């Protein structure tokens, strides 16, 4: 028995979301954890340390989602895996639905818990953009689960994985890659995977005032985010927009600066472990969803907070 995990490589190493998927698979206690990856791999890609016993590696660089799905399905058949695990990230969203169809497997997309096998096979997932959770029962013999980034955490096992070449037939594709633009050049963590997120809204008054927001983020190695109107008016890029119609995130710490806390914004961030709100309006609805709050003008609070954060980090 084994569980297959689809892992995504960046600079030869498995992404954080992939390592989380491996951690999840090894906690399932459903047999050996086998990773499938493609592209350039360094060593075992850091995957043995997070529970992979074996890494199946296909060296082809650019594969379309349809081709990856074919290889993953073949790898599952070859290893006898009845369950395939993905991260519910941009890669997982492209590949997992195809794999489910190919394998005739039921799928839980956006899982936030381990399967409960006490009665059937039930996995909890996030629904209504984080406003509720649903227990989903899978009725098929084969299963696909994709887990929400940051919902499960990383669990080191400090093992090592053997690496095996996997030369399946990926078939052809009518899709060609023209180019790739990284969203950040300095290797910062992508927003959905970030542990700490510093987010700001219309209260910042203009894009020229984002300096302190970015500075606070860089002190904590955090990703930056924003409210929807801020992205809509072009102060910040669309990929920073969080909320019901942006991306949903679950960092351990979320700073909301000059954001009112509209229901649509809260929907995307209320899975955060700890929320800090900085707003000059004591009646701002966000304080109701906050763990810690500062009522004050962001332009006065931020410089002091940055000083305090710097001195904390230097100790």
């Amino acid at each position, binding site marked *: 028995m084994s569980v297959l995990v689809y892992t995504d490589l960046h600079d030869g190493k498995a992404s954080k979301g992939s390592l989380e998927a491996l951690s999840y698979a090894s906690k399932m206690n459903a047999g050996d954890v086998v990773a499938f990856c493609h592209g350039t791999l360094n060593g075992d890609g850091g995957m043995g340390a997070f529970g992979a016993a074996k890494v199946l590696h296909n060296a082809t660089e650019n594969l379309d989602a349809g081709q990856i799905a074919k290889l993953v399905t073949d790898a599952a058949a070859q290893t006898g895996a009845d369950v395939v695990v993905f991260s519910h990230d941009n890669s997982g969203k492209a590949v997992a639905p195809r794999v489910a169809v190919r394998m*005739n497997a039921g799928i839980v997309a*956006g899982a936030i818990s381990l399967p409960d096998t006490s009665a059937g096979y039930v996995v*909890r997932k996030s629904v209504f953009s984080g*406003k*509720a959770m649903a227990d989903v029962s899978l009725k098929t013999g084969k299963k696909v689960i994709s887990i929400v980034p940051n919902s499960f955490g990383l669990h080191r096992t400090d093992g090592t994985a053997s690496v095996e070449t996997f030369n399946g037939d990926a078939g052809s594709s009518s*899709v060609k890659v023209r180019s790739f633009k990284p969203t950040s050049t300095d290797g910062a963590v992508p927003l959905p995977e970030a542990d700490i997120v510093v987010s700001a809204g219309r209260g910042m008054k203009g894009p020229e005032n984002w300096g302190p927001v970015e500075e606070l983020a860089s002190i904590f190695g955090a990703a930056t985010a924003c409210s929807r109107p801020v992205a809509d008016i072009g102060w910040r890029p669309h990929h920073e927009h969080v909320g019901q119609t942006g991306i949903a995130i679950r960092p351990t710490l979320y700073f909301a600066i000059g954001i009112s806390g509209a229901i649509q914004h809260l929907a995307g961030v209320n*899975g955060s472990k700890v929320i800090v709100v900085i707003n000059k309006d004591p009646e701002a609805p966000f304080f109701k969803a*906050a763990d*810690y709050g500062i009522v004050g003008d962001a332009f006065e609070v931020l410089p002091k907070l940055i000083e305090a954060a710097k001195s904390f980090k230097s100790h």
Partner: protein
Amino acid sequence: MIKEIESSKNQLFQKNVRNIMRAYEIELNFRANLSGQKWLSLQARIKYKNMKILVCISKAPDTTSRIAFTDNNTKFDENGVQYIVNPYDEWYALVKGIELKEALGGNVTTITVGGADNEPIIRKALAIGADDAVRVDLETGDSFVVASQIAAYAKDQGFDLILCGKETINYNSSLVGGMVAEMLNMPYLSLATSLTMEGSTAIVEREVQGGMEVLEVTGPFVLSAAKGLAEQRIPNMRGIMAARTKPLNVIAAVSVDQTAEIVSYTLPAPKGACKYVDADHPEELIRLLHEDAKVI
């Protein structure tokens, strides 16, 4: 023989292209300020004429809806809930389909899997500019059942493009597009933020792990729409009037078994009270985050 027909067809096509190009050059003399965009759209018109587009439309509770459950937490409480077109379907997928039709000619059909209570949101999609609509008469099942219905309908219709939103705001699964693509053996371009046609090639920009990817694809494909793909459109009075008489065809569902089922819902535990820190002493916040919450 077939080869000869193909080659003469090809020659005719080439000649046609040259003629159009010449006509275009003449027009160019009249419009010294012609933009590159226009040139591209003319080129595209040569090959991507009369695109047949299918847009998947789903209903979702209004974003301000109270989320609650009934029947021992097994059913979503629809009491007082207003339904809207799922924002990703409406704002980006549908509008992109309409934009392509406006630029290249063609037809936009919407498809919705669900009961008659979906008709108001279907009429809204028609008011925004879809030409006709299909409703597969089935009280919605899981993503697999929904995708199976869409694939069964689309299979023999020769769509050039199938568009759907990147996810619904009620289930957030992001599955239907990818499943339809697999069932129809088509490429699936997920989380697309831009789509343009260059001749017979579609250029798609999409969100991938760690960045944005630019892809080109030929032939029919399925695309899921993310923010940026198009700009939301508000239906006008004329659109709303026209929508009343546009065809809405109700078809029977194909029989497929559900693979997943929601057995119960839970609401997240309520937050404790907010701890306030004095604005003049943010160092106290840092201390609390470190010692109390232990998150830094």
